[in-house]
Each structure stands twice: as C-alpha cells, then as structure tokens.
C-alpha cells in the first residue's frame, strides 16, 4: 500500500509539475467506492483523470489531486470501469448478403450509423466500448468493428479504436456454426459441410499468405490483392480475432478445432452449452463471451442455455465475458444480465471482470480499456449503488474523461427509461417474434 501511495503521488505530482496547462484539465472524482477491476474494491476512493486517461486511482488519503483540478464529489456512489460489450448489433448495420456463406470482405464500419439513439441506450447501461457485429446467418459474416461510444462526432471514424481503417485492423471477424448458418447452397446443409467450407477458405488464405511472403519486396510477384484474403491473413497472423457464434457443445469444439488447425484462438460467443465442454475450452485456452438470458429456448441451439455456464467455465479456468447480443438482451440491462451469473455462482468481482477487463482482452484491447489504472482510457460508470443490486441505476457514464451520459439530463433519461420518442429515428426494425409468431 505504501508503494502504491508513493507511485500515485509521484505520478500526480509529476503531471502537475511538468505542465500546468495539463494539470488544469485534470478532473478528480472523490469519495466513491471504486472497483478498479485491476485491483480490489476501494472504499472512499479518488480517481484522477487527465487528457482522457486515468492518471491515478486509490484511497482518497493516498491520492494527490493535482492543483487546479476540478473535483467532483461522488460520496455514496459506486464507480466501475466502462463496460465492454463483445457482441452487439446496435444500429442494425447488416453484413454479408445471401450471395455467399463466407464473406470476409464486408465491414461493419461501412454500415454503422453512429447517430442512432441505440448507442445512447448502450451508454445509459454503462457500456463504453462495443464490438459491433454482423448477424449469424453466415459461416463468416464479415469484419466487425470495435467502437468507443464517444457520443460526439459525425462519422464512424470518430469512434474507432484504430487510427486508419484502410490500413489498421479495426475489429475482428464474425464467424458462426451450428444451425443459424445453414441453408440452401451456397450455404451449408450440415455441420460437416459447414466446417469443410470454412477450412477450405482458410487453406486458400494460407496459400495467399505464402505467395505474399514469397514475393517479399518484389511487388511484381505479389498475388492480386484480395480484400477477403487480406483479412484472413490478419487472422492467420494473430492480428485479427475471430468472434465465433457457437451454441451447442460439439459446435463449440468444432470452432476450437478449426482454430487449432489454422493457428488462431477464437472467442466463443453465446456458448449456450459451453459449460459442458469447459475442460476442453480451458485446455485450448479459448475464452467464452456468454449471452445471459431469462429463459432457455427460442431455437434449438438455445434449449440448454443456463446461468450456471459462467460458474462452470470459471471453475475450469476459462476466461468469461458477458455480452448483450443486443437486441437479444437490452444494452441498458447488461449489469442485470451479469447479476444472473452471480445468482448462479460467480462472485460479484468475477461478474464485474466478465463485463470489463475480460471482454476487453477478448477484443485485444485489454491494455487500453476494461480497468481503472493509470495510463488506461478514462472510461467509467457512476452507479447509485453496488453493481449487481436491483436498485442501482447508472447515473453517469464517462468516456475518455468526458461525460457522455447523465441521468439528470432529460434527453438522456428518456433513452435510459424509455418513453415517447426515445427510439424514434432508429429506422424500421423488424424482429423475430414481434408479430406474435
């Protein structure tokens, strides 16, 4: 504790000394109970933020608030890191079409409307980083995009976590198996065919990768550029993460098998039966992002979904996240979803980890978001009480040191609670089941 005190003190002092201008923009949040996730719960904590980053967090008596910092009193409140949602369909961006079952070329970035009130909805639930996903009706439905919900901005580029979408890897790759991606040709009609089609594509990618390597710096020997192959090579090189929709236990293992063959570690999404193969997932080092729902059923793959999956995965040593799969669950209620894993055996700390640092790591963003520690993005949520208590509500959400949701603002409250006009302008959304069938 003593070393922490000194380190925090030095950091804050250094900041204050080096640049008075920067110190002025420092903001301190004092008095709340803070769950930094990177360490144990801190009652009566102070969090110092500057330049969009966390500069200090610790017990109030151990944190030096830079001179000139704006101080917010959060006595009685609870602060947690901004939630990271590994799987959402906000703003209905679409994805691959019916022309092929595997389409690595299509990008969510080209479909996202950041002005959709759906994103404010997510902020009202404390979500600050999302993996915007295409649907699951394909074996490979395209490139996902990781977004920081900065609220301000006019273009999707304003919300990216990468610098240049033409060059950088700005998201993952959505894959699926099981029944969702089956259909008439060119879609697969069976599980084995599903796996064969995916393997075939990755083999092509390996060959493309070989040609690129063989060409070296000789541009004349390079294969014709192929958008899909480029993205797949990023997977083979470990630079793009595969987000794999998979429910049934054997389908989950098929996804693991595919990853092993081609040298990547997928993140299993939904994982309705993941508890049944927890040991195998642990052995393979494959993490799972669960969708936690109120009841089983609705489709064959979800017949055995259970709240106990989270505990069973934890017991086996598998990294666990909890996602919204919005609209399957409501982004405003992600904390509630996680509470059901506490109901079924996780500790509150483990459930909070599953909403923050664990999913951040599953997106390859664990060094930047998911916990409150110096140097990380100042993304956090101010709650009225303990994270998994029914009466706790999100009061404020902050992204990179800026307040982006405030329950006392009428426009924000409208989206948080719903009501006339809350979701106008989200376009025509037609959901399964909406018509009573």
């Amino acid at each position, binding site marked *: 504790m003593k070393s922490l005190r000194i380190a925090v003190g030095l950091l804050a002092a250094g900041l204050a000394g080096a640049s008075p201008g920067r110190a002025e923009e420092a903001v301190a949040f004092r008095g709340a109970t803070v769950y930094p996730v990177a360490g144990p719960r801190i009652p009566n904590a102070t969090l110092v933020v500057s330049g969009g980053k966390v500069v200090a967090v610790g017990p109030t008596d151990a944190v030096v608030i830079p001179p000139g910092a704006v101080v917010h009193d959060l006595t009685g409140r609870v602060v947690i890191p901004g939630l990271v949602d590994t799987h959402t369909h906000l703003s209905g961006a679409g994805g691959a079409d019916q022309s092929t079952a595997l389409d690595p070329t299509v990008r969510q970035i080209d479909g996202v409307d950041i002005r959709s009130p759906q994103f404010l909805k997510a902020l009202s639930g404390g979500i600050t980083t999302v993996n915007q996903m295409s649907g699951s009706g394909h074996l490979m439905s395209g490139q996902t995009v990781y977004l920081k919900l900065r609220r301000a901005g006019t273009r999707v580029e304003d919300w990216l976590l990468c610098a240049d979408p033409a060059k950088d890897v700005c998201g993952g790759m959505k894959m699926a198996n099981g029944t969702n991606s089956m259909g008439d040709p060119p879609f697969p009609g069976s599980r084995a065919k599903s796996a064969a089609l995916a393997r075939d594509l990755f083999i092509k990618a390996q060959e493309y990768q070989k040609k690129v390597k063989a060409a070296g710096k000789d541009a004349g020997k390079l294969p014709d550029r192929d958008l899909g192959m480029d993205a797949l090579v990023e997977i083979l090189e470990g630079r793009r993460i595969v987000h794999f929709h998979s429910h049934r236990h054997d389908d989950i293992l098929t996804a693991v098998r595919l990853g092993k063959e081609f040298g990547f570690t997928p993140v299993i999404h939904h994982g309705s039966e993941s508890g049944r193969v927890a040991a195998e997932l642990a052995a393979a080092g494959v993490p799972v992002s669960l969708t936690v729902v*109120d009841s089983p*059923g609705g489709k064959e793959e979800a017949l055995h979904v259970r709240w106990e999956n989270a505990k069973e995965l934890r017991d086996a040593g598998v990294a666990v996240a909890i996602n919204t799969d919005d609209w399957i669950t409501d982004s405003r209620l992600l904390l509630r979803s996680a509470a*059901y894993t506490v109901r079924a055996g996780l500790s509150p700390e483990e459930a909070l980890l599953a909403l923050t640092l664990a999913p951040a790591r599953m997106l390859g963003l664990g060094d930047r978001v998911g916990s409150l520690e110096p140097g990380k993005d100042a993304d956090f949520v101010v709650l009225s009480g303990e994270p998994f208590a*029914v009466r706790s509500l999100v009061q404020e959400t902050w992204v990179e040191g800026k307040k982006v949701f405030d329950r006392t603002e009428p426009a924000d409250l409208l989206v948080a609670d719903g009501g006339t006009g809350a979701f106008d302008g989200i376009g025509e959304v037609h959901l399964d089941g909406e*018509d009573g069938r």
Partner: protein
Amino acid sequence: MTRRILISVFLLGAAAGLAHGETVAVRGDWVYPGNGPAIPDGVVLIENGKVVRVGPAGEVAIPAGVQVYSGAVVTPGLIDAHATLGTSGIMNSNAAQGASGQDQDQLETSGPIQPELRAVDAYNAREELVDWARSLGVTTAHTGHGPGALVSGQTAIVKLRGNTVDEALFDPERPVEMIAMTLGTSVIRNFRSPGSRPKAIAMVRAELLKARAYAEKRKNADVEKRPGRDLKMEILADLLDKKIRALVTAQTATDILGAIRLGQEFGYDWVLDGAADAHQLLAEIKAAGVPVLLHPTMTRAVGDLKNASFTTAAKLAEAGIPFALQSGFEGYVPKTRLVLFEAAMLVAHGMSTERALQTITADAAKILRIDGRVGSLAAGKDADLVIFDGDPFEYTSHVCGVLIDGVAVREQCR
C-alpha cells in the same frame, strides 16, 4: 444451484412429497401476504391445500409433527396475468413455417378472426417452460392464445401443476377466460387483410354485429327458432352476453383508442393488454374503466412498442388505474420472460417491494377475478407460496421453494 430449502419435520413425518390433506407450515423471516405489510418472522399454516392461518410466529403456533418449509422471504405464488406458457413452447418450432416440429400453438394464421380456437386444445401442461416459470415462482398463469390476429382464440387460467390441461385448469368449470384480440401492426403484417387499422376495426365490428344478432336469436324462447350451432358466433355471443371478457392487445395510442371505441360500441367487458403508449392516455384509459395488463417491463422498445417505458407502471399506479404485469409472448431467444424479473424492474425504478409484488400477485388476481382463491395469503386461500433466500427482487436472490395447493412442486434453489 443445488441448494435446497430448509425442510424440517418436527416429529416423524414423510420426508418426500406431501399428499393432499396433510398439514404443512411455511415460515419466513419475512412473510409478504401480498395485500398488506410484510410480517416479520411469519408463519403460514396450511391444511388440505388451503391456508388456514397467517401471522407472526408468536401468534401462529406450528403444531408438532408437521413439515415446515422455511426461508428468508415468503410470498404468495406469483401470477402471470398474461402469458403464452404451455401454448408457445421452448423449441419455437412452427410447422406452418416449414419446421419439422410444432410447438407454437398460440397463433393460427389461416384467418384473422378465429375466436373458436380453445386454449384447452393448445395447452401442454408438460411444456418445459411451464416448469421453468414454476421454478421461478409462477403458480398461476392466464395463458392460451397470443397476440397477432384480430381474434386469435381463447385464453384460460391455469395453475402450473398437473400433467394434463384438465389437472391444470384453475377452475374446471371455466375452460374459457377471455377472447384474445389484437389491434396493431402485427395483425396487418400477419394477414393480407386487414391491411390497415380502419379495416381491422371494420372487420371486428362486422363480426360483432353478426354475433349480436346471433346472441339475440339464441335467447329466443322457442327452441326451434334458435340458430344452429356456430362455434365462432357462440363464443362471440358469450362475450357480448358478458359471460367472458375480451383481452385486447393494443400498444400504440391509436390502437388503444380503437380498443376503447370498440368496447364502448359493443359494451362487452374487457381488459387492455400491452398498452405501451398508456403513459400518453392515462385519462382516457381511466375514463374507460378498463384494467391494464401492462407489457413486460423490459419488452424490446421497437415497432408498436417503441415508446415502452420502465416507468409506465408507476404512472398507472399514480393514476389509480388497476394493472398487473405479464410475461407476454416472445418469438425468439429467450422464449419466455418471467414476471418475477419484470416486477423487479419496477423496484429498480423506485416502486416499493410491496407494491411491485402486488402487480404479480394480488392485483393480477383481482383483474383476473380469481382473488377469492389466489394472490394473497389469508385463511381460506389456496396454499400457493414461494420461498426466497433473500429479497425476492434482488437478481442475486434465489427462489428456493414453490408450493401449489400446499404441495411442494419445487424444492431446489434457482
């Protein structure tokens, strides 16, 4: 969860399932009777499946030898005021849409007005979601035909017990509770006609006018002059004769007003269902004197429900409009909602535990007109109880016991 509720037997007694007719006691650190303040260290004494006494442990002695179930909190069995439990199954399999199986019997799309479809012919007492709901405290449900047709069919009230619909019926003499009607976009999408809201209303009016004539004719003193049997007309005539009520699902303000207009024209008893825009029409709904079965609190705010709000329940309460919560119908994943969790959202948004509990117990019973038997814990009522290991509405509490008619139907924690 494999934890079990604490079961103690004061003297020698049967360890397992209780037979109807035995005396049982349920003791809670807090007993919520459902229609009044919670009783600290309360006892509910049960005989022959009925509650015989409720009160503080100091006043209600537990006789020697009876089986005692105990837990932190005891509430009345929860009532789902409008579900499709048992008719819309876990597989979500619809043969009419090409699936290999069929467990979606809550909606028939061969015609927009089919009041003759009976709930008893659709309800599957062994459906897995019935067990799921029961494990989370639901003991009574108003279920049957769902939304999506102008008239989709009939509903019935069941206890979540038994292996057959006959064993499940709340009142064997009452296999028809309401006629399920829907006004709104879903009907227009599900059928070629009606293709608009005015057409929908016109079609219902035309049918009810026919039924009115039928109802008059069947009252003819001369048996010979009575009309021949007509399944559609019989049930609509029952509605007009106020033997049964209409459950009218209407979410948008336009549809709610349409439902009120129809009700006024034909004078039948009815219940407003869904009512996502109710917060815009509190005065009109109150003036119509119609109770509301409010959409699930956490319903997806899209389409006709895009104005749904977590706070509508509080506004109905404030306006003095009788209302209850429901699980409604879900067409995908998850396949059903649970009223326990829907009511928890009311607590999250400021409602008291007692008031929120009423929306899924006493108030639901009153609106369904079954409060003589269920919805609260009082002498003479059915012994339907739920035992929790903590605050019923905390997400992290568990339902650890469920009794229906004095019989433990669930003893594991979930």
